[in-house]
């Protein structure tokens, strides 16, 4: 039964326009992101020499000299986010920049909410869910397809990055090292966990909109901000958390901070967090399916 439902969901996946539109939007966003990083010099600049002295004087006088667009020919130390200025970025590094930008999870949130929410919008669950065996098989099939699409999206991001970096980032290095492989596995797992949360929200509420709205909010790191506030509060009330940061419980936060040189213990923590979210989400999905009537 599971494989039958899996074939059904894969068929539905391929028949949905949004499946391909989302990938098109990801390509557009990747091109834009790489053009932005590689072609536009938006680096924060800190001026040196006399300029620093002037800045300090202004600061002491109560004025914030702020950030200035400066002429690169002058004597400035630059802390650019634009990789293009180094001229030797690798595709792996650019992939990391694109992944951490949040584009992938934003689009995943939209796609998952559309794909799973569709079932409730059309009430098609009534056609199939007349026994618990069917419910289990369908849940398994749906979440397998969600995981497969998430993985496909992360895999397709690589050629998209390659294409856009070839267009805008000049001399780009192709490198396949072990660090990138581990990084890919970890962020893909976190993306799957994120997709599962959104799908679970749809399945638990049995509506499309809550998953869509909460998914977009989560992908934009607002929850990371909430965790950061909790972090501060914990320190204010002198709760001894040691080096632990509550913000590290956020998937969006983990995706934003992980890079190719992240220590393996941080990766392990990220995977643990993702696994916990998946387990909790699936627990409530199964509980809802078992306890509530089909609508």
């Amino acid at each position, binding site marked *: 039964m599971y494989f*039958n*439902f899996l*074939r*059904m969901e894969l*068929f*539905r996946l391929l*028949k*949905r*326009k949004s499946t391909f539109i989302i990938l098109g939007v990801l390509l557009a966003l990747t091109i834009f992101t790489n053009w932005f990083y590689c072609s536009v010099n938006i680096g924060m600049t800190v001026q040196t020499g006399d300029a620093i002295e002037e800045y300090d004087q202004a600061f002491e006088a109560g004025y914030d000299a702020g950030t200035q667009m400066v002429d690169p020919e002058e004597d400035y130390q630059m802390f650019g986010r634009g990789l293009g200025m180094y001229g030797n970025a690798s595709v792996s590094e650019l992939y990391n920049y694109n992944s951490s930008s949040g584009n992938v999870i934003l689009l995943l949130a939209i796609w998952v909410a559309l794909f799973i929410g*569709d079932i409730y919008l*059309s*009430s*098609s*669950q*009534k*056609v*199939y*869910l*007349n*026994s618990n*065996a*069917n419910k289990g098989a369908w849940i398994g099939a749906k979440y397998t397809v969600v995981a497969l699409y998430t993985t496909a999206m992360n895999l397709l991001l690589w050629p998209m990055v390659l294409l856009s970096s070839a267009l805008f980032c000049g001399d780009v290095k192709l490198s396949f090292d072990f660090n990138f492989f581990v990084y890919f596995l970890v962020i893909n797992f976190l993306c799957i966990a994120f997709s599962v949360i959104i799908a679970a929200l749809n399945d638990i509420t049995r509506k499309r909109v809550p998953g869509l709205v909460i998914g977009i909010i989560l992908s934009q790191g607002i929850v990371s901000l909430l965790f950061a506030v909790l972090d501060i509060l914990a320190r204010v009330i002198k709760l001894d958390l040691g080096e632990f940061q509550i913000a590290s419980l956020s998937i969006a936060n983990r995706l934003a901070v992980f890079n190719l040189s992240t220590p393996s213990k941080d990766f392990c923590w990220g995977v643990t967090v993702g696994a916990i979210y998946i387990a909790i989400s699936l627990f409530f999905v199964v509980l809802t399916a078992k306890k509530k*009537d*089909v609508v």
Partner: protein
Amino acid sequence: MGEYLLETNNLVKAYSKDLALNGVSIHIEKGAIYGLIGRNGAGKTTLMRIICGLARPTEGTVNPIGFANNKDFYKNISAVIESPALYPYLNAYDNLKLKCLAYGIDRPGYIEEKLKIVGLNGVKKKVSQYSLGMKQRLAIALALVGDPEFLLLDEPINGLDPQAIVEVRNLFERLNKENGITILISSHILEELAKVATQFAIIDKGQILEELTREELLTKGTNEVIVGCSDVDLAESALKSSGFTSIRKEGKESIVIGDSNADVASINKILIEKSISINSIGTKSEGIEDYYLRLTSRKV
């Protein structure tokens, strides 16, 4: 009485403080077209949802006695409950293809065969462009995928035009007679249901008021004799003296005799013997609608 396919025993379904079903027991014969009659909110849909496993009863059981076990039962039933459950961005073929994939059906021409039954074969446009009647027919085709032995159809003729109603009614009869499918149909369009159903259950406020066969319904329905005559008072006293008790006057020129033994010939003879001139005489049979109204109003 035929062999039973399914029976329910004292089904109760409670939603917070409301009882949607209150001790519902029905008995569906194998090969029957079982009509579930009731007004909106009477509990028809809830009963069907429980039978096909979409909802759990608070109390009571569904006993699929005509099937080997529950697994066999769920494998052999199909339902169209409430609105047609279709993906609007797919065409008719792809909607059926999805269910074929779920059921592991990979027979060439199978989908076309089902679409042909409901007259939608070759229709290429997406479901979002369908009329309600087309959606209903497609939902029935979807329900036929898997060749079920037992079909549950909740208000299947809602939104259909008169011609489509006739087509769908013929389809039900064909499926029942040619394919041997037992059908449970709910509807509030009683006259339509009366044309196809062989068994009936009248449900009101979550309770079964009566369960009866078509033959029983015909005998239960009252017949009245209506006489148009010149002197209704004289006619009334003549009939009363002949032993008729259920007599009522309708206006100044008509009298209605509702006794079970009332027949045109004997009434005609009595009135002629009393020299009462008769303008018209005829019978009026009570249909299923009248019977339903009489039964439900008695309960109220």
